């Protein structure tokens, strides 16, 4: 492999941490969903790197990356549908303004 495995793992760790930061600090629900996509993407990079360097059956990691991409697409679709429904009812997309259940 051209680049050592550890460098790719650290790169995807940083990408995951950036995504987690976005999930923790964003107020906008769409921003949180975008950050979740970043985190799933980092996991995919790990799967591909492992399938390239350590696995004995090289297609296994890629197959699971395909599954992760499919799940990410469903997550985005359902999440954005929820955002639209919320926006129609409450006229906001900010997490701290959605406090109907908070007492």
């Amino acid at each position, binding site marked *: *492999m*051209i*680049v050592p*495995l*550890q*460098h*790719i793992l*650290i*790169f995807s*760790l*940083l*990408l995951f*941490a*950036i*995504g*987690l*930061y976005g999930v923790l*600090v*964003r*107020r*906008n629900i*769409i*921003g949180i*969903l*975008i*950050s979740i*996509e*970043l985190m799933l*993407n980092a996991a*995919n*990079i790990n799967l*591909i*790197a492992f399938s*390239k*360097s*350590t*696995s*004995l059956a*090289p*297609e296994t990691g*890629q*197959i699971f*990356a*395909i*599954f992760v*991409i*499919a*799940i990410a*697409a*469903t997550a*985005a*679709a*359902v999440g954005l*549908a*929820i*955002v*639209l*429904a919320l*926006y129609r*009812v409450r006229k906001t997309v900010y997490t701290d303004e959605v406090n109907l259940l908070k007492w």
Partner: protein
Amino acid sequence: METLELFVRIGIYTLMALVLVFALGVVTLRNLFHCALCLAAVLIGTAMLYVGLRADFLAAVQILIYVGAVMTLVIFVIMLTEHLGEKSIRQNNRQSPAAVISLSGIVVLLAALLLRTPWPVTDKALQAKASVMALGKALMGTYAFPFEVISVILIACLIGAIAIAKKDLPGEDVS
């Protein structure tokens, strides 16, 4: 051959740095539309990295599904909900310093663990190349059951997204 390899290595590291910069843009920019464009750049950079890791089919799938479908959906919803004129609204909550501190702790811990773990990098795996044919055979053979489950999930998500986002009937009261 040596110089070519060196250039490829420099290119891959530059690509990683660019992807990280765009990822920082995703979580820090104020305008959500710019965030979405940065996310598209991150996804395209990741697809290029997949090509570097000899996963050509995954790169194509990444461009098609993420950059094609998911990004369209995200930008569509941003256009529907965001008031692009209002620049003064705070986009981050007040947990930013605490998040940075705890996340840097996690990153240092995990990086130390990653560097110490002896990864079983085998020469056999480095030589192997997963062709699209092998991928399809594995998907239809070994992983046929998860494949079916994924298709059921996709149908459920399709119906669920329509059911959630559709306009309510006049008689119904949701609020």
